[in-house]
């Protein structure tokens, strides 16, 4: 069984960049770049099957300033191998274009069974790539998976649903987008994994390798066009206490609440 995981690299939410600065490469350090948390959930989904079904897992990164870093980490987690797609002309802000690039990656890759990816909360925030890719490939799919188990005909998958969880079955050749859940909690990298990752040769494919030009995968080809990107300013005066012993902090909070006539409780 061959599994492909498409991962995104993002600027960590732990760094102190705010708003639009996240999207400004000149403000970003290499150290700030991490695998999108839900991409890690997706890797975990694939690795569980690698263990139980003797599958190979190939991580592919198209979106990121330093994809190679994310891919080494993916291998350190246990992925069999990885492919970097790096080319300045590729425009990945439009989910339809990103889905198209993924289709071409899969075509060049050859035979595959399962495709995993994570929810795009922290990356494109488009929430559309998984569904678009599945539709383009004509693959049965399930989005926002929270748990899965192998059954004779393929997989039984539970996914996020308003008011609970929805359970469906999908065939063996399918696409699964994964959300943050206990089942998909990513494993840590192992010492052995880190060593393997260091030595791993990661091929890098360009747009030309995929037969893509600016006309079809560059910004000019996007049907979703960005008009503006601005910081959201919340007009709320936040009183944040970030110094002092815990007891002092609590006292400060209570004093301030009293001053503002906010009553805790009845």
């Amino acid at each position, binding site marked *: 069984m061959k599994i492909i995981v498409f991962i995104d690299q993002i600027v960590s*939410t*732990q*760094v102190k960049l705010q*708003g639009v600065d*996240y*999207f400004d490469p000149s403000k970003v350090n290499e150290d700030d770049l991490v695998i999108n948390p839900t991409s890690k959930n997706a890797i975990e989904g694939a690795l569980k099957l690698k263990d139980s079904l003797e599958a190979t897992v190939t991580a592919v990164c198209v979106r990121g300033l330093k994809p190679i870093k994310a891919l080494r980490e993916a291998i350190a987690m246990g992925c069999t191998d990885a492919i970097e797609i790096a080319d300045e002309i590729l425009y990945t802000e439009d*989910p*339809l274009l990103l*889905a198209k690039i993924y289709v071409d990656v899969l075509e060049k890759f050859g035979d595959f069974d399962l495709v995993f990816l994570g929810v795009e*909360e922290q990356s494109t*925030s488009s*929430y*559309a790539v998984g*569904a*678009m890719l599945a*539709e383009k490939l004509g693959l*049965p*799919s*399930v*989005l*926002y998976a929270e748990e899965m188990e192998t059954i004779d005909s393929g997989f039984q998958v*539970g996914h*996020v649903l*308003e*008011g*609970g*969880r*929805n*359970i*469906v079955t*999908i*065939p063996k050749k399918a696409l699964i987008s994964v959300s943050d*859940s*206990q089942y998909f909690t990513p494993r840590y990298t192992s010492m052995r994994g880190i060593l393997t990752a260091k030595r791993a040769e990661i091929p890098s494919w360009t747009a030309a390798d995929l037969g893509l030009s600016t006309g079809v995968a560059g910004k000019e080809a996007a*049907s*979703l*066009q*960005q*008009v*503006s*990107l*601005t910081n*959201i300013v919340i007009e*709320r005066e*936040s*009183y*944040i*206490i*970030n110094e002092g012993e*815990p007891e002092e*902090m*609590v*006292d400060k*909070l*209570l004093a*301030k*609440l009293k001053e503002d006539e906010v009553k*805790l*409780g*009845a």
Partner: protein
Amino acid sequence: MKILVYGQIRDNLLEENLLGILNKLSEVFQGSEIYAAILGSQINNEWTGELGKHGVKKVYTVEAPELENYLSRPYVKSMLEIIEKAEPTLVMAAGTVFGEDLIPRLAVHHGVSCAQRVVNITLEGEDILFHTPVRDDQAMKITKIEGVIKFATSRTGAFFENENPSGSAPEIEKVEISFDADDMVVKHVEVRKAERTVNLKDAKLIVAGGRGVGGKDNFQILKDLAELLGGEIGATRACTDVHWIEETYEIGQTGQSVSPDIYIAAGISGAPQHLSGVKAKTFIAINTDEGAPILKYADYGIIGDLLVILPLLKKKLE
């Protein structure tokens, strides 16, 4: 201009976010015709009637056993057929799990992209602008879609319904669609409904916990504080997923919607899916991470360990 909305039915009712979308659409696109599509195994007249009341002129219905539960293929197939008949310029759905599954797929078939989870729609000349918060709601991206038909979903909770709708009964057009085995490769097994044993809607104070609570037993700390303050507890999906707390306490898009006077968020990062279910007068956050998005929404915040802060707070309030 013609607009088509996907009339999602949830728990035998019209999806509540739909009414907000209809209100927004009639505000922004004055003079346009709004149509709706309802798919299901049995269509209830009350749904179509309610859509009419909220300004929908015509409802396309597809009734088939294969549509009993949402599944991408039969739903996409039906909607594509309806789009062909209705010839809309804009197709919208509520940004529920199923709405978000449907819209991008329809867009693919029309060769265009889509905008998901929009919180505002505006017009600029000929262009329809979609406003979408990105990166944990830190920035607002405004986009437009090139293409004859635009596809979008709204973020749940973004729009408010018209309290005094005055529309009349809509025209109904039944559409026949046949499905084959290939449409049904993904099979519905069951919906595991979260048991709603506690109603948090009327709670005046909620002490809500997230993954930062760290374990089942620690929820007792939140319960103790909530009890002292005469409030309720709440949780993120991250906590109900691991069964640290009963599912009934989940707050957000897929949990309960709450509007307390005071919301104490402890160990919660502030995912939009969680926050879309919270409207509080006073927001207090306790988090170890100074960069946590939730702090932007907090009126008051303490950067610290909730396992230390909450018991102290309780002690001082006793």
